[in-house]
């Protein structure tokens, strides 16, 4: 049974897992970092408060992204979804600008 299962793994399945791991690790960190950046610039508090609160909230985002990367219906969808969210966050953070 084991050998049968082993034989059935092709490059397709390996690629599937590799892409999801990429989305779930580097992708999740990217989303987490950009969430921290966007919130640090937009939360309605003093600068240092916005930075600390933004950082704490960002940690909660990463596990959600990792799990979603493995639950998404396809590997490209996982990677695309993570990239899309990261892009939106980056645009938002860039548009908000560094607070004075």
């Amino acid at each position, binding site marked *: 049974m084991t050998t049968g*299962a082993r034989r059935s793994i092709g490059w397709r399945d390996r690629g599937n897992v590799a892409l999801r791991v990429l989305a779930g690790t580097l992708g999740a960190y990217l989303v987490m970092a950009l969430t*921290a950046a966007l919130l640090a610039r937009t939360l309605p508090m003093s600068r240092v408060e916005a930075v600390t609160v933004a*950082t704490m909230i960002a*940690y909660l985002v990463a*596990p959600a992204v990792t799990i979603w990367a493995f639950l998404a219906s396809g590997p490209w969808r996982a990677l695309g979804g993570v990239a899309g969210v990261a892009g939106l966050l980056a645009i938002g953070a860039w548009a908000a600008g560094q607070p004075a």
Partner: protein
Amino acid sequence: MRGSAPAALRDGARQCMTWLHGWTGLLLGHVLFLMCLTGTLTVFKAEIGRWMRPETTAIAAPADAIVAATRWLDENTHGSAGWYLTAPDAHQNAVQATYDSDGAYVTRALDPVSGAPVARETLGGEFFYRLHFELELPYPWGRLLASLAAMMMLVALVTGIIAHKRIFKDIFTFRPAKGQRSWLDGHNALGVLALPFHIMITFTGLVTLASVNLPWGIAAGYGADVTTMYSDLAPGSVTRAATGEKAPLAPIAPMLATAQRQFGGAPIGRVYVFNPGDTGAVVVVYPSEAQSIGYMSGEVSFDGATGQMLKAWTEQRAGVRAYQTVYGLHMARFAPDVTRWLYFLGGAMLTMAIATGMVLWTVKRRERAPLSIGNHMLERLNVGVLTGVPIGAVAFLIANRLLPLDMAARAQAEVSAALWTAGAVVLAGLLLRPTIGWPLLLGLLALACACAALLGPVWTIEPGMLTINLMLLGVAGALLPVILRQARRRDRTTPVRHRAVPA
């Protein structure tokens, strides 16, 4: 094993989460085990320090001890950039000091009355505290690896919850002596029973290392100007450069009295002296952390040369208080004795959950098919690391009693003893057959614990030392039935239980 990945992805969410839980737990599992064990020991950092300095029995009020310490440092250090002092409290009697003299930084415990370093040079509980998040690696790599492991842990916890069918029932389920089933039951009970603690401690742990692992919020808000961020975070703390002109340090006692009034009567916690002996000297005083959950809840700065108060700050900004509370929840310095024991218990359960999870990985795979070469190595690495880390920790205590008092670099020799012992045990675990390795090395751990308690000495009645002795004896006692069972199992002719065999 490798085949299970894509299959799991096809088999639905729960299997997928079980797969992810296994891998995120496995990859840095040994690092997590080390972090959890040393973190759990750090709950009793002060008591461990007390155990490791049995000759230091003097007791002084926090402010008096700081005065004594600064007097000694003033006379015995040269060209210091900073003295970082932690006052004694209800848990430990020595002043914890990190300072530089002639360019070299040292960490020493200072006698609360004489202010001089104590006779038995040791890092004490500070060793476990540092090891917990720096992993004996140079900055920032240790903290980065610890952060990565903590991130994996957070994912493993969340996926572990999703992988569960009946989370409440698992608390009450334990079916002993049934191979994989028993390991899984034990792993589940340990993981689920203290689950809120596990999630809290992992999340707050990540936050304590935020400036290393997630500096992007700071970068977005402050750019490269980190200095402004730190002064915004602690507005009562003054930083200024040394002028190069000499000036004696003004008397510390009046500054401490002023600071204590500023803290509403709370005792002194920490005192940092920057550029002592210079006209640019600054003394920053923080209140004791035993007073509230929030860490560093205010500070007062004084001009070191004139003794004049420069700035005072009591933290009331909601966002910063939230951050300090999250930080303080991890450090547990606020915790009264009962809460400390709960932290210890929670930490011990998390450590055991990681250990059982690591063992479960190979037990589960062996019941399906013969182990692959990688899993054979993992099985042996488990034996080595899961016994080597605690044996190394106990070796640190034993070295503290056996090394001569006047030895050069004594504190570092204790650390070396711990690391070399742990390394040797890991090697032994890799070389021995697991059926021999487990009972032998667990037996060594029990023996080491008993030896350390005897060297305590075992008849001590000092509360802090007695606590450590009893814990050592408790571990040794709890291990005995496990070792006996392991040894008996070795005699059995069929050590592996196969699924195919009808029950």
